[in-house]
């Protein structure tokens, strides 16, 4: 497919193929648009809004919006950075995120975004919701304290694993991740080899007994801020 669509992101000319979303075209061009619920290979979800950009002056989520010729996209602006910061801070206070003893620390996309955005401590009040840890499966656990409802496990289970292990139940404030079983994860057909297990951006869905096997300093985000891979991949191409 020819890259015959031309548009701009923050004034930079970007070539894209028809049908690409803004986030895909940006990524191919070495421009990082922050994201959480977006995962290449999955159908777009548009749930977290962290990828919000302005297209021709109107806010939209870059992971769902297809590119169009001549589109003018704003990405790295003060206004959008502030919005994304707020969204990430809200995610922190809506759950129970104790980075200092979470095994996903250094691997966690939410934490990495907070670092990239320079968030030291959220400005909102913590809500400290009462949430459960589902340890019923022999090899996988779900810690609802850390779930940010991105739906990556839900979609991966359906679209990649051909299963239907996870689903959302409830609406609005009541919305939460559930499993498709009467009881708990142990009663589903989830397997530790499922792609869904690795789809979680935070420490909510984890393979058991891995814990802190990777030392501090050698974890993915210890040295390189999130998004650097996208930004430097393009630099190498140039």
């Amino acid at each position: 497919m020819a890259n015959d669509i031309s548009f701009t992101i923050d004034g930079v000319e970007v070539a894209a193929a028809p049908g690409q979303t803004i986030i895909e075209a940006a990524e191919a061009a070495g421009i990082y648009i922050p994201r959480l619920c977006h995962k290449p290979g999955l159908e777009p979800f548009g749930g977290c809004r962290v990828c919000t950009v302005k297209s021709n002056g109107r806010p939209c989520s870059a992971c769902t919006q297809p590119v169009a010729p001549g589109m003018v996209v704003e990405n790295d602006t003060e206004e959008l950075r502030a919005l994304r910061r707020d969204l990430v801070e809200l995610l922190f206070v809506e759950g129970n995120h104790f980075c200092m003893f979470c095994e996903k620390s250094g691997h966690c996309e939410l934490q990495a975004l907070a670092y990239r955005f320079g968030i030291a401590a959220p400005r909102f009040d913590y809500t400290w919701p009462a949430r459960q840890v589902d340890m019923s499966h022999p090899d996988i656990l779900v810690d609802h304290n850390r779930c940010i409802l991105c739906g990556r496990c839900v979609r991966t289970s359906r679209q990649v694993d051909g299963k239907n292990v996870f689903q959302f139940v409830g609406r609005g404030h009541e919305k939460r991740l559930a499993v498709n079983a009467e009881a708990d994860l142990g009663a589903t057909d989830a397997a530790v080899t499922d792609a869904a297990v690795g789809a979680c951006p935070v420490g909510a869905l984890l393979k058991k007994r891995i814990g802190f096997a990777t030392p501090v300093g050698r974890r993915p985000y210890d040295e390189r801020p999130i998004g650097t891979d996208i930004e430097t991949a393009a630099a190498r191409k140039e």
Partner: protein
Amino acid sequence: MTRIVIEPVTRVEGHGKVSILLDEGNRVQQARLHVVEFRGFERFVQGRPYWEMPVAVQRLCGICPVSHHLAAVKAMDRIVGGEKLTPTAEKMRRLMHYGQMFQSHALHFFHLASPDLLFGFGSDARKRNVLGVAAAHPELGRQGILMRKYGQEVIKATAGKKIHGTGAIPGGINKNLSIAERDALLVDIAQMVRWGESAVALARDYTLGNLELAVDFGSFESNHLSIVRADGAMDLYDGGLRAIDKDGNRLFDHLDNQRYRDVIAEEVKSWSYMKFPFLIALGPAAGWYRVGPLARINTCNFIDTPKAEAARKEFVKASGGKPNNLTLAYHWARMIETLHSIEKIELLLHDKDLQGTDLVVKGDRREEAVGIIEAPRGTLIHHYKVDRNDRVTMCNLIVSTTNNNESMNRAVASVARKYLSGVEITEGLLNHVEVAIRAYDPCLSCATHALGQMPLQIELFDAAGRLLDRKCKGMAQ
């Protein structure tokens, strides 16, 4: 009747509160030290995965997180059937532990204790702090800072971070010591050993030069508890439990850590969130004991590093070969352990096992385990139950400060008897109570170590329980 109210506690660090109770004749009858306890944490971890414990428990304390890290992981080693560690794993953990001991003891001695010892307990409080030491004895101030920093670098090289590291994992360790990390630590090791020696000399000269004061300052005879190595050597990382009485008679020896509940029970008192551990054989009234540096020097047969062993011999000579029961001798004992720790660090840095790559072992799963370590402040006990789904279902911690609970109360009562005049809390009383408590280096000072201040509140009650006086000192000074 006036009663003291303490807020229910989930905080991990706090300040000390002392109540002094008088009898009908307004003589000191009893002293009670109230310290923030950790029960909130024991509930919090229920239902969480076991491998998280060694990292999660570090939230208990900002000053000795490594001790909790290692006590918890020793329990988890047994949960995964991996208690026979590889040489690399065990030595890395020991290095971490000696680093922690070195930095914690140095911090306590130079930042908290030395102002009292150098300037006198009653001296001007504005000068009697770490800044005063830095001004009057700049070399000493510098040593304290650099020794602490060195210990922290050891922790970073083994745990990954200076605080809240992740190095020790169930059945082993997640990294070895790189050649670069080793060489960086070797640069200053000789200097650190020398400073360890001079710190022992300082504490020894102080103690021997003030024996008359020390004999009468918050001192009392007690039992002593610690773990010791199979051959009776001091071992801060691992060993069987040994308890001795005030004369040095063994009450039990080389007791399997898993069976601590056969010999130690905890008494609950209505007025304290902190429990009162005691040796079951002696009962709650007589079974309380001391832990920490003084207890460890008293319980062990010898120290397996030459410089610290020579220092220990001098120490034992000072008390005529009997256990030393002087509260102020804690400082001397603490510095002997500091020297021992840095000698151990030096040996380990030259040990090729630390560059090994065999890091983790696993075996048959267990559902219950105990991990005991000698933390800087004394014996630290972690006890867990873990179900088949890897969930922690029970957690019981007996921290060093709790083990020293009754001893600190005795020390405070003894000092109060001597320095209380009338029914008013004087500045002098406040200072002396603080010095007595500080000898035990309780963790109530965790939050304020960095400032060199221990917020302390003293309340005086008459026989009818009426509040007579209240004085506070701390952060604001």
